């Protein structure tokens, strides 16, 4: 197994900033939490490999990191041997023990600090606002069962990073679920104009228990979308969402029109098919704002 490597360095964050913003790296997924898996260790490794193949940055920690190392392919190699340990597209990065989850949250905070020059000291709300609206990161506690895992999940969702847990996670008896059918829930301030703008249900949930790894994978791709995605970034994220949904659910997702803001968001290889769907559902073009939930960050009042 790959040794836990500790904090993600500033220079590594700088190297992936462009690709993350442009969408070449569709998101950062963190496989964390305990090993109370519904169907054994294999599933968590399958999730890691699936997302590494799709050029997401895959971070692992604690029991989940160990479980991934326990699964070998037909050549006897673990995912750590097949994928690089760099904080970059397609890497599977073991940050260390369960308490090293702080390094994953730290990486998200560093993105806000380095690229948006957000002040770090006493400035939690602006950093959480930045991460919620811009950083396509998702945490997955596939075997989460402990109180420690619950508090780690809590630390992530309050930072604006959605967390998916396996079926046993339902026993935490708390979910933070959005309602994509309530359009009024999905408005943000445009920091440029001060206008309230509909951005769609991104990210739809902040804490959600799912039943199967297939459901988790589709939801992970969906929860990586953010209001501030560039058109290229949204297009790549939608490609993965649609592709996973088609393969695992057998259909194009019903909620697809909610995630398309302009026609430039539509994945180019599926354009005709998706435009037909958009037209049949009465889709209307929208704008891409400079999103924030904090009125104090509005630069000009509309």
């Amino acid at each position, binding site marked *: 197994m790959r040794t836990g490597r500790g904090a993600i360095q500033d220079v590594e964050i700088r190297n992936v900033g462009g690709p993350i913003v442009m969408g070449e790296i569709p998101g950062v997924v963190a496989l964390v939490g305990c090993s109370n898996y*519904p169907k054994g260790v294999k599933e968590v490794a399958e999730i890691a490999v699936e997302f590494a193949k799709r050029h997401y940055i895959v971070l692992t920690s604690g029991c989940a990191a160990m479980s991934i190392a326990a699964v070998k392919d037909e050549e006897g190699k673990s995912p750590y041997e097949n994928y690089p340990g760099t904080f970059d597209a397609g890497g599977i990065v073991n940050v260390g023990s369960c308490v090293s989850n702080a390094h994953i949250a730290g990486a998200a905070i560093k993105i806000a600090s380095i690229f948006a020059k957000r002040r770090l000291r006493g400035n939690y709300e602006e950093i959480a606002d930045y991460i919620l609206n811009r950083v396509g990161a998702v945490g997955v506690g596939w075997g989460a069962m402990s109180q420690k895992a619950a508090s780690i999940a809590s630390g992530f969702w309050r930072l604006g990073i959605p967390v998916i847990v396996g*079926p*046993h996670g*339902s*026993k935490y*008896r708390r*979910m933070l*679920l959005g*309602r994509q*059918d309530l359009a009024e829930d999905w408005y943000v301030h445009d920091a440029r104009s001060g206008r309230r703008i509909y951005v769609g249900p991104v990210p739809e*949930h902040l804490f*959600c*228990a*799912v*039943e*199967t790894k*297939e*459901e988790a994978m*589709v*939801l992970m791709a969906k929860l990586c979308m953010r209001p501030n995605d560039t058109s290229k970034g949204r297009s790549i994220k939608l490609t993965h969402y649609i592709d996973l949904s088609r393969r*695992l*659910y*057998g*259909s194009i*997702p*019903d909620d697809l029109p909610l995630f398309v803001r302009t026609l430039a968001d539509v994945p180019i290889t599926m354009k005709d098919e998706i435009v037909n769907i958009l037209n049949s559902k009465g889709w209307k073009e929208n704008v891409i704002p400079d999103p924030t939930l904090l009125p104090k960050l509005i630069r000009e009042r509309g």
Partner: protein
Amino acid sequence: MVVSTEPWQKAEIPGPSKAQVITKPEVVSALIKRAKRPLLIVGHTSIDVQLTGSSVIDYIIRIAENAKIPVVATAHVENEFLKRKFQVDASLPAVDVANRLCDPNWKGIDGGGPYDLALFVGLPYYMQWLILSGLKHFSPNLKTVSLDMHYQPQASWSFSNVTSQEWEENLKVIIQKLGGN
């Protein structure tokens, strides 16, 4: 048939209000016929469990077709329905649909108004337990029915702990009483 109404999972203590036991499967078909707005929620274990005649999901499709109930598939069950040429009405996470059922202002997946009966089948036992507990406390106008083979005391109605043979017979009777064969 020996009626066992102990919770299937130890240490799951339901409180004073427990599900009425469905001693005859005809009760389920009567509940469905009487309901104005029923909803069937199907989880992934309906794919995994194979009964002698066919898999659970095949029986569920026959129930849905005969009773004309809208179906919500959770997890990746939609794929299995599509393989059997059955179109579900929605595919949502189980906790998401439960959350919506708790909202008295939810118009439903078709916009036709709130549901008065929710039938659950195929969710993991402990997950269904928690969802039914939430609905029992926060959705007072909704009746819930568990169609699984283990007693779910948090539902309004549930089968007792039955064998897979008894369960299959029950599903067949429900289908017959709904006009199927």
